Every structure is written in structure tokens, then in C-alpha cells.
């Protein structure tokens, strides 16, 4: 792109013949029926970036020609445009966004002469005058037959008719390129640019069967086109990954933080085409991406994937509650080859369904996953359990010295279900100071400086109690 431009600049400096204004036909931006797009390929990334390649057949004359490109994305990033035309070099690229509107039309007519058609409100008789527009500042001041007046000062109907549309005004933002063509003739031109307003994510439907401990996972890629432009019959490629975007270009692009769903990242390679670290999801057939359309295409259908449901409760430091609080319901499964999904999972929303007593799938919650490499274990919180609750209680806080406390905590776990469950009980917030567990009634595990975790079995229609004492120094 840069090279092309410099070549073009050199060509211009070397200076062929002086160009005449007439050799620049005004850009053909009057939208015709149907689209002016050619053979379109769209590559869509996750973070509101898409690469559009559009191969159009252009009929060019010899010498300096101006060519406009209607029907490019309305959300184009004009600074990223590059054009490759055989036997032609680019002299300059313009992106005109001075739009045609009643105000801009009148402003451009300052100093010009327009036609006024006055209508007599009583008789309907029309009289015509030629008027010169003197100024458009808050109102339109005109000169008619040697008098100066304000347009429609009396509120009576007056049609202002302009002779032509000024060349500089466009009905849509328009990309136009001036080319130095070395031969006349029709040839393909490859236009490529980045656009906003095109994005994709994944949507998963996970049907969980508690009895067999399996989940059926369907994956859909969801494309959204809010660019304001339709791309018809486009070759479409989706890239699972984020390219550093120029919007936050301070040289320190940091990937976003992971959200509530937790996963143990895997180390398997999926049998997908890869581009560097990104996985590619090409659509099998050409498709039309209409404006304001959401399109979904299946990419994954896995049955009999081993899965389990569990419970998790995390208590904040000194979290104490006067009533039991629900534990999270967590669905865990793996996308390893052995477990059944056998694919990397692009970021998206997983919706979990369970069949009711009549066999109809019912929704039981959803959560977002990030890009997940193959072989990962995913723990997806889907909601709060109705029947499994935990009541944390700070039993005592005893001062041991200037900056030392001994804190006794009791957790009462209750289970109103008719089968035994195991709750992953986590005490968080232990990394404020030097915190040690002096004693605990069940064997726990210090996961990291901040958390201490227990796996607590709770019998059916029963309860369990865990007590622990922390020794804290600040």
C-alpha cells in the first residue's frame, strides 16, 4: 500500500502531460439498482474488525482517470484502503463525506443563482423569479430583482429550485481514487479495506443429561452485520482471535481479563486451519451478509460428551450472613479429543438446557466462555441452586495483639435435594496479610495465597458443618 502510493507519487512527479479538468469525470455515486460490488471476500475478527476484499472489473481509459467505488462498507476505515489495478498506479485516494442535504445544498449555492417558484395560497397561481443567494446564516438571504429579502419571511410557500447538485456533495460517503492508467481496457481491480460493524461470536447450545452424565453440544457461529451495507454472495472467513486494534494503540495492547466461567487451559491442537495463533472458521458456501442481519451457521455438533454438575460457594473475608445463601450450580465438561468435543471453542455464550419430566428441553442458565484451546476443562456457573445453600457465620473475632486477630468461622451447608451432593467451599480474601489456618474440621487445601478450599459432601435432605479458625497478622 505504502509502496504503491510512493510509486504513484513518483509517477506524478515525473509528470506526464498536464491534466485537464474534463478528463476527471464526476464520480458515479448515483446508486444504481443492485450493488456495484464485485467478487467479495470478508474476513471477520472478533473485535469489531473485518477485512473486506472486493474484486471489481473496471473499465479504465488511458492516462489520468478518476474512479469512484460505490457500495463499499458504510463503516469503512478509509485510511486502510488499498487498491491493486494491473497497469495502473494510484495518484491519490479520496474519501468524501461532505453529504448532500438541504442545508449543504443551500450553503454551496451562496453566490449562485437559483429559481424561486412562489405559489399564491388563494389561487394556486405560480410566479417564477431568479434569485441570487447572498448568505445562509440562520436564514437564507436572497437578492431578487434588485431587492434583498429573507427566503420565506412571510411564511408563504416558496419552492427553491437548484440547477444542479454541486460536484463535491455526495449522497453517501464515497471512496474515489485517481489512477494513472498506462493502457485503456477492462481489468479486475482488487480493493481491500478494513471495516467496522462486522463481528462474530460463537453461540453454544448445551443439552445436559444428569442421569447419563453427558452433554450434547451444538456450536453456532453468529455473524452480525451492522456496517450499513450488504455484502452479497461473499466468501466468508471467520478468525477466532483478536488482532490488536488501532483504537487503543499505545504500544501496550493487553488481552482482556477472563470472566466468571473458569477453565483449565488445554494443550491439544484442534484439527482446524490455523493462521499463526488464530483458528480459522471458513463458511462452506458463499453467503449474503445483509445489513442489520444476524446470521448463524453451525460449526460443531458433539454428542455424548462427559459432563458433570457440581456446586461452588465462595465466601468473602469476614462474610457472614443471617440467612443461607445459594451455592452456584456449575456445569463442568472438557473439550478434549477423548471427551468428545474434539475442537477448540471460540469465545461466545453457552446456553444450558435440561430436559423436563416430559422430555422437553428447558433453559437452565447461560454463561460466556473466552477462546478456549482444545483439551481445556471448562467450569461454567449457570446460576444459583434452589436447594443447596451455605450459611457462613463469623463466630468470633479475638484480638491477639496489636495487629493480630484470631477469627473463627462456621459454614453450615444444607441440601434439600433427595440425593447427596458435594459442594466446593471456598474462603477467599486471605491474601490481605499473613493468614494461617490454625484448625479446620475437615481437611481443606490452600489453593493460593488468597483462597482456602474444601470439598464438602452434604447428605441428601441433610446438612454439614465446617468450622475453621484463621490466625491473621497484618
Amino acid at each position, binding site marked *: 500500500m505504502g509502496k504503491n502510493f510512493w510509486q504513484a507519487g513518483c509517477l506524478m512527479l515525473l509528470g506526464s502531460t498536464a491534466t485537464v479538468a474534463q478528463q476527471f469525470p464526476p464520480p458515479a455515486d448515483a446508486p444504481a439498482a443492485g450493488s456495484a460490488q464485485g467478487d467479495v471476500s470478508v474476513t471477520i475478527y472478533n473485535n469489531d474488525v473485518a477485512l473486506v476484499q472486493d474484486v471489481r472489473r473496471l473499465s479504465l481509459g488511458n492516462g489520468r482517470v478518476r474512479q469512484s467505488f460505490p*457500495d463499499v462498507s458504510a463503516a469503512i476505515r478509509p485510511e486502510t484502503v488499498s487498491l491493486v489495478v494491473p497497469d495502473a498506479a494510484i495518484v491519490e485516494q479520496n474519501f468524501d463525506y461532505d453529504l448532500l*442535504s438541504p442545508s449543504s*445544498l443551500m450553503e454551496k449555492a451562496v453566490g449562485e443563482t437559483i429559481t424561486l417558484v412562489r405559489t399564491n395560497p388563494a389561487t394556486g397561481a405560480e410566479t417564477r423569479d431568479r434569485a441570487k443567494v447572498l448568505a445562509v446564516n440562520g*436564514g437564507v438571504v436572497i437578492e431578487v430583482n434588485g431587492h434583498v429579502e429573507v427566503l420565506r419571511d412571510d411564511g408563504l*410557500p416558496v419552492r*427553491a429550485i437548484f440547477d444542479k447538485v454541486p460536484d463535491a456533495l455526495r449522497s453517501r460517503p464515497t471512496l474515489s481514487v485517481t489512477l494513472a492508467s498506462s493502457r485503456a481496457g477492462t481489468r479486475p481491480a482488487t480493493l481491500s479495506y478494513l471495516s467496522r460493524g462486522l463481528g462474530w461470536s460463537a453461540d453454544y447450545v448445551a443439552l445436559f443429561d444428569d442421569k447419563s452424565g453427558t452433554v450434547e453440544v451444538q456450536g453456532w457461529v453468529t455473524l452480525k452485520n451492522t456496517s450499513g451495507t450488504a455484502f452479497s454472495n461473499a466468501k466468508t472467513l471467520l478468525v477466532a482471535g483478536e488482532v490488536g486494534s488501532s483504537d487503543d494503540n499505545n504500544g501496550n495492547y493487553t488481552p482482556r481479563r477472563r470472566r466468571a466461567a473458569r477453565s483449565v487451559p488445554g494443550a491439544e491442537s484442534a484439527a482446524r486451519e490455523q493462521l499463526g495463533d488464530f483458528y480459522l472458521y471458513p463458511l462452506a458456501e458463499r*453467503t449474503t451478509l445483509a445489513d442489520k442481519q444476524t446470521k448463524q451457521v453451525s460449526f460443531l455438533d458433539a454428542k455424548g460428551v462427559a459432563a458433570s454438575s457440581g456446586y461452588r460457594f465462595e465466601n468473602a473475608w469476614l462474610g457472614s*450472613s443471617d440467612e443461607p445463601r445459594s451455592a452456584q450450580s456449575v456445569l463442568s465438561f472438557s473439550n478434549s479429543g477423548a471427551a468428545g468435543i474434539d475442537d477448540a471453542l471460540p469465545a461466545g455464550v453457552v446456553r444450558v438446557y435440561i430436559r423436563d419430566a416430559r422430555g422437553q428441553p*428447558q433453559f437452565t442458565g447461560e454463561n460466556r466462555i473466552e477462546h478456549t484451546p482444545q483439551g481445556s476443562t471448562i467450569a461454567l456457573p449457570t446460576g444459583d441452586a434452589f436447594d443447596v445453600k451455605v450459611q457462613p457465620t463469623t463466630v468470633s473475632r479475638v484480638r491477639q495483639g496489636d495487629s493480630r486477630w484470631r477469627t473463627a468461622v462456621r459454614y453450615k451447608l444444607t441440601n434439600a435435594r433427595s440425593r447427596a451432593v458435594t459442594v466446593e467451599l471456598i474462603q477467599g480474601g486471605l491474601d490481605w496479610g499473613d493468614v494461617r489456618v490454625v484448625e479446620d474440621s475437615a481437611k481443606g487445601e490452600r489453593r493460593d495465597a488468597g483462597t482456602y478450599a474444601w470439598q464438602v459432601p452434604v447428605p441428601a*435432605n441433610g446438612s454439614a458443618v465446617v468450622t475453621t479458625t484463621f490466625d491473621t497478622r497484618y
Partner: protein
Amino acid sequence: MLRQLLAAAVLAAAGGATPLRAEPTTVTSAAPDRVSLSVYRAPYGRGAMNLRFLEGFALVTEHRRMRLPRGTAVLRFEGVAEGIVPVSAVIDGLPGGTIEKNRDARLLSPASLVDGTLGRRIMLTRTDKATGRAVSQEAKIVAGPRPGVIVQTAAGIEALRCSGLAEQLGYEGVPAGLSSKPVLSVTTASPAAATVTVRLTYLASGFDWRASYVATLALDGRALDLFAWMTLANGNDEGFHQAEVQAVAGRLNRVAMAIPQEASALRLVCYPLGTTTSDLRERTFEPAEPIESADQIVVTAMRMMAPPPPPAPPPPPPSPEDLGDLKLYRIAAPTTVAARAQKQVALLAQGPVPFERRYRRPVYPGERVDAAPTTIVLVLKNEKKDGLGVPLPAGSTALYAQRASGRLLLGLGVSTDRTIGETFRLAAGVSSQVTVTQVNAASREPVLTTPTAVGSHEAMLTVSNANPFAVTLDVPIGTAGQKIEAEGQEIDRMDGIVTWSPALPPGGRAELRYHY
């Protein structure tokens, strides 16, 4: 001009050079044959629902009979709920599977008509306001719809409706791809022509439900009857006729979704039309008549002078089934959920349920409390042996007393999800008869430790009961785990908080001195 047209023609030809595929047949399904609706509560909703802004949602399962042709076809689904979350749509039962699913949201509106007709011929009609004579002429839309519309007529270039004349645009037809509502469609390729039943499942916003508990104290005041309505609301424009309706209790995790954009109106902006008098200050006057609000709700029922006893409610549905970690309530018979309507069906009926009446006022050490009133709570154990033992989903509570002269409202409150074995609390109002007073007492002994040390402060609590009956009061002091030393008596901790629970006889009074 000619050159422009020529260039456009060349470009159009270039666009047409790409191979065109045969247009697939479109099969439209106007409405579902059978529909099932599972309504989910707003995850953090409390108390009553706001019918104008329902934050819950529903899972809609529709069965539609559709005739599929052989080969590639586009199936359009009409009459889906307005609040559909399009990415959640799942379609089963297609023999040829789903090639792609689309949701098109280019809506037909005044602005999109101009947008879709840009560059094409329209009919511009001017009507003479004096004579009513209409003059039509051909015109072409040159620019629009934002911020104004420019047309090209035989006379030249004009801005629409800036002249003060009555001007009207007439279009040949609706531009392709515009529809009145967003349209959900799937592309499928059937191996043979067939009539199939397609199941369409999707999540839709604009629904909600609550349990509305009505507790009635028996005449003797010792037990109560607990009844609950399932209050469902549908804020969508679509009604669901004779639907299987379920309600799901429990809190689900949801992911925030983008809010769909509105179809746009046509806003015409003209060139500046200020006149020689338009900069004068505008004066406003009081309106002659008060503006009447249109938000009046008409209750279509009549209240008799002596209200008859409430009719026996219909039998409640059987106890809910477990749906994973949620509870699913099924309405036994198919029912119609109308558009923009609230509906109530019986959820449960239990009774008689014994209860304990407690008064409560938490205090903090050091806080000055001056004869503060106490809240009254009826405490129910959600156990089989105590007449309950059913899941109690979150909702609002209303407590009534049955008296010889009629019903009397005692208290209104809210409740969260309560499962079997938990405590269910019914708000029963506020008592000014039972009061709590706390003062900071001067220490009677010389202070031995530093003034900031635990136990160096002293407070005095006084409670009194002006009722002609005995009451039990709970006064939790401070926070969980806090060290509170009562003088002369042993006080238990309740949920980690030191809680003084004196039993007060009629007209009784009690005192507690404590260190903190």
C-alpha cells in the same frame, strides 16, 4: 449527467458479472400450531413487577407444521415473540438440517423507504391547499434520508418539504429486504418434498413472574393458611393462545445482550429558515386546562358494600419438578397468555401452618436508640411436620387477619427463594407497642484499659411491652463475631451475632447492661 448514468451502467454490469445462483423457494409459517412457554423470573427482581419494564424472560417452544419443497428452501417464521433473542433460536425436525439461520432486522419505515429508493424514480405529488387540486410529477431521490431528502424534478434540484407546500412522495413498491417486523429464517436443503413438524425454541425477553403469597391468620390467631398466586406477565405484542405454561423458580445466570435498535422515523431537516422576526423571544403562558394523563387504569370490577367472602381458589398445581437445580411449576391445563397482560394462577395452598410471632430491632453498640418501634415477623418452619415442607419461590407477601367483620391487612413484605427446611418469614407490620431504647452508660468502675480497648465501653438496653399479651423480642447487637459481654447473664449468638431475646409479659419491661 449522461456521463454519470453511463458510469453507473458500467458499474452495474460489473456487479452483475458475478454468477447468480438460483433463488431458493421461500416457505412462510405464519403462526405456531402448538406453543409451550416457560417463564423465568428477573434474576434480581424483588417485590412487585413493573409491567412496563419486565426484566424476566421466557423460553418459547413452538411446533409448526411446514410443507418443504425438494431442494434448497428458506423457511420464514412469523409471529415469534417480539423480545426474541435471535441467537438463542434452535430449530429441530428439518430432514435436511440447517444450512444457515438468519435474522433480518431491516425494518420498513419512512426512513428506510427513502433509503431503499435512493437513486430511483418516485412520484412527487403537490396538493394545492386552496383548491385541493393535486399535481403529480416524476422525481428521483438524490439524497436522503438523513438529514433531509433532496429530489430531482424536471425543474431542477429541490429539498423535500422546505417550500411550505403540501408535498407527498409515492413509491412504486416496498424495496427488497424490508419487513414490518424482524424476520427469523433458516435455509435448509430437503432431500425430498415433505410435510414436517418443526420445533422452534428461543429465549425471549419481556416476561416475568412472581409468587404472590397471601397468608390469612385464623380467628384464634394461632395458625395461618398460606396461599400463593403465580403472577405471570407478558410485555410482548404477541399473545400465546392455549399454551402449555410453566414457570421456573431459581436464579439463572444471564449474559447481557445488545439492545435491538428501533426502526427509524423520517426526520426532515431543511436549510436554515430563520426569518426577520424569528429571533424574538418566545413567550409561554399557563395552559388553559390541566393536561390529563393517559395513564389511567380502569379496574373492571365492582365492589359491593359488604364484600362477599373470596371464592375458593382453583386447586393449585402439584408440587414442582426438579429441573437441574431449579424448580419447574407446570400449569395443568393449556392457558392463554395474552399480549401485554398479567395473569394469575394458583401456585400452592397450605394450611393450617403454625407460626411463631417475633419482634425484632437490631442495634449497634454506641448507637442512641430512643423508644424505637420494632418490626413484627411471623416465623414459619418450612417442614412437613409443621404443615409446609414445599419449595417457596421468591415473591411478595401479604398477611391478613380473618375477623368476624371481614379481612384486615396486617403487613406487606417480600421473600427470597426458601427451600425445604429453611425459615420463611412473613412481615406483619411495625409495632409501636413494643419498643427498644439504648443509652451509653457511664462506666461504674474506673477504666483499667485504654479507652480504645474492647470492653471499655458500656451500654444500657431497655425494652418494654405495652400489649395486653406476652411477646418475644430479638435484639441483635453489633456485627457477627463482635465481642459483646453482657453483665450478669449469658447471651446466645444467633447467626454469629450476639442476640438478646427477652420474653416480655403483658406490660413488662427488661434491661440489659453490656460492655463492648
